[in-house]
């Protein structure tokens, strides 16, 4: 496919009226012309002319075939990591939150850093499933399922931290909107309570969205199953789906509504997370730029994680390259470049306002960030998030998978550093020098964090083994033959 054709947006996917008029005009002369025009106007989303049958058989075969050896090997690494995470949490609960390095003055340290890091990663999944759906970006169909799964698993990892950092976990129910043991009600005007509602709503809606998308594909697996147990399990999960148009019409409506609900939701979640900081009166946190800057950063880091897991998945299941094409990777790299540049702009704007605002505490906070004891974290953040993604201006780096995979590791790291910089540098310098102090992680901090990667990967491995990782019915719907007027010169 010529590169010029790739640049043409896919909004022309459903042959628009002007094109129909054009084909009517030319059809009388020669049929061939319209075919060529079609090829120019819309590059195929699925390569190698794969059929509907192929899509079903291949995607389902990943679930149906014997468990491959690499899966067991990977699980052999990630399951012990998960167990390490869980035993660290058990140790924390049984001993006390002091096993982490949090102490005065840095009371929010790695736990909140890791919480914001993981929750941010989830945002790309919802962006792909909701916002790209509403904007009719048909290319999303082959990546949305895996990205949504990633969202859920990232939120699971994120949820661990706020729940556990409260110290006495058995008191976590104080967060629920019921009067607590002392008859005291929650403060509904606190950003921390907003966060409880935002994150739990986000998780719940993401599960609903994901499962709704899975129903027709679970029916595909149900109908292909040979073993009785599998047939029963997938049959129950598919809820009796039959694929009638009287079902599809409500289904499509529900999906559209969920996309419409998730779009403001995903923007709100990281905005609310940023309110945890922005509504305080702490220098370095009390800034109005936080909500959009956090959302852009979340999408930036999330897309990096989508590529981090999708590139290896497609390398293992090679025919997936016909569905998740180089064009997809190219587009995701462009989104990373865009959001990375927004994040870079926010960093510079923060610095500018710190200087221009004339508040000596604010100015000192930012001076300390860049040149204080955490200078290495600040410049690591700057390099990873602002400088490294600029390589994606070059098509070479956007289209060579090994390079893409290497480059997206910088946003992954950089976004962790960003949260650490925001939290640790600000807290370690209180207003009075007597309240200054540094944060040092303990081995429990480190093992818990490393363990969450194990948990995330384990959940993802279980997902690709037991559920279709590509949304089959949506990919079928973007094939040319899915158009009810396919092959008709006149309509």
């Amino acid at each position: 496919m010529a590169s010029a054709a790739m640049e043409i947006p896919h909004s022309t996917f459903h042959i628009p009226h002007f094109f129909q008029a054009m084909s009517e005009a030319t059809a009388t002369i020669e049929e061939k012309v319209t075919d060529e025009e079609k090829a120019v106007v819309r590059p195929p989303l699925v390569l190698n002319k794969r059929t509907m049958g192929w899509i079903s058989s291949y995607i389902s075969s990943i679930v149906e075939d014997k468990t491959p050896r690499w899966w067991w090997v990977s699980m052999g690494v990630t399951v012990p990591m998960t167990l390490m995470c869980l035993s660290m949490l058990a140790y924390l609960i049984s001993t006390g939150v002091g096993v982490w390095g949090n102490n005065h003055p840095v009371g929010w340290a790695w736990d909140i850093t890791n919480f914001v890091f993981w929750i941010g990663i989830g945002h790309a999944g919802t962006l792909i499933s909701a916002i790209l759906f509403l904007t009719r970006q048909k290319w999303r169909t082959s990546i949305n399922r895996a990205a949504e799964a990633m969202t859920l698993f990232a939120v699971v990892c994120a949820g661990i931290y706020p729940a556990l950092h409260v110290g006495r976990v058995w008191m976590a129910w104080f967060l629920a909107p019921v009067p607590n043991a002392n008859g005291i009600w929650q403060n509904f005007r606190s950003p921390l309570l907003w966060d409880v509602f935002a994150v739990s709503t986000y998780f719940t809606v993401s599960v609903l969205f994901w499962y709704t998308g899975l129903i027709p594909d679970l029916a595909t697996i149900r109908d292909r199953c040979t073993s009785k147990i599998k047939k029963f399990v997938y049959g129950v999960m598919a809820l009796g789906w039959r694929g009638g148009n009287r079902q599809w019409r409500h289904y499509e409506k529900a999906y559209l509504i969920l996309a419409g609900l998730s779009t403001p939701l995903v923007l709100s979640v990281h905005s609310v997370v940023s309110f945890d900081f922005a509504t305080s009166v702490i220098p370095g946190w009390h800034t109005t730029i936080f909500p959009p800057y956090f959302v852009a950063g979340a999408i930036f880091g999330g897309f990096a994680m989508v590529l981090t897991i999708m590139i290896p998945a497609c390398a293992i299941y090679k025919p997936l390259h016909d569905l998740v094409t180089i064009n997809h990777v190219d587009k995701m790299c462009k989104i990373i470049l865009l959001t990375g540049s927004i994040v870079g702009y926010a960093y510079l704007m923060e610095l500018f306002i710190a200087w221009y605002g004339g508040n000596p505490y604010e100015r000192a906070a930012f001076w300390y960030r860049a040149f204080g004891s955490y200078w290495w974290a600040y410049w690591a953040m700057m390099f990873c998030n602002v400088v490294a993604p600029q390589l994606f201006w070059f098509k070479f780096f956007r289209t060579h998978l090994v390079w893409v995979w290497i480059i997206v590791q910088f946003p992954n790291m950089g976004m962790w550093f960003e949260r650490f910089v925001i939290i640790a540098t600000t807290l370690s310098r209180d207003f009075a020098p007597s309240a200054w102090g540094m944060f040092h992680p303990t081995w429990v901090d480190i093992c818990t964090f490393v363990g969450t990667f194990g948990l995330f990967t384990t959940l993802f491995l279980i997902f690709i083994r037991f559920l279709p990782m590509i949304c089959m019915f949506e990919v079928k719907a973007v094939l040319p033959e899915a158009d009810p007027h396919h092959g008709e010169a006149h309509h």
Partner: protein
Amino acid sequence: MKNSAGNPEAPVFGVAAEFQCARDLYHAAEKIRDAGFRRWDVFSPFPIHGMDEAMGMKRSLLGKIVFLGGLTGFLTAVTLEFGPTSFLYPLIVAGKPTNLFTVPAFFPIMFELTILISAFTAVFGMLIMNGLPRLNHALFNWDRFKKVTEDKFFVAIEAGDPKFSERSVRDFLESLGGTNITTIHGD
């Protein structure tokens, strides 16, 4: 030779036919609509663009139901926030008022609960309107129908339709280009 599926002793669910592509199904639907049938459906591996019009159906009502769900979520949040803050346990935090003027600080939770209940309404409303979940259906008695989730397209006209008669519906589906025309029985 008459094809049938399911238990031949059981009452007839309807007559179904197979089509090979979305285009044929679409045109068959237009003709069935014009013939005046009411209890029938087309089945496909994916939603077909424009099929609602081809079947002569109106927009799904789901949107209006979800609006009510969203309203419920919003009112829940209003009650949940003003109840304790203004009446049950008024507490002045950060100098914020406890009366109506505190509403900007209430927006995030109002928003989240509106979204939450709307999403539940959308999913469960869709399932209820679709008659799901259910464990079995007469159409699953037909072995070929398994292909509906893969790459085949089907039409079924139900015995409950006022214009239904097995003989004429079979001929009608055949005239539309349907293949493997089969009478589906229940269990």
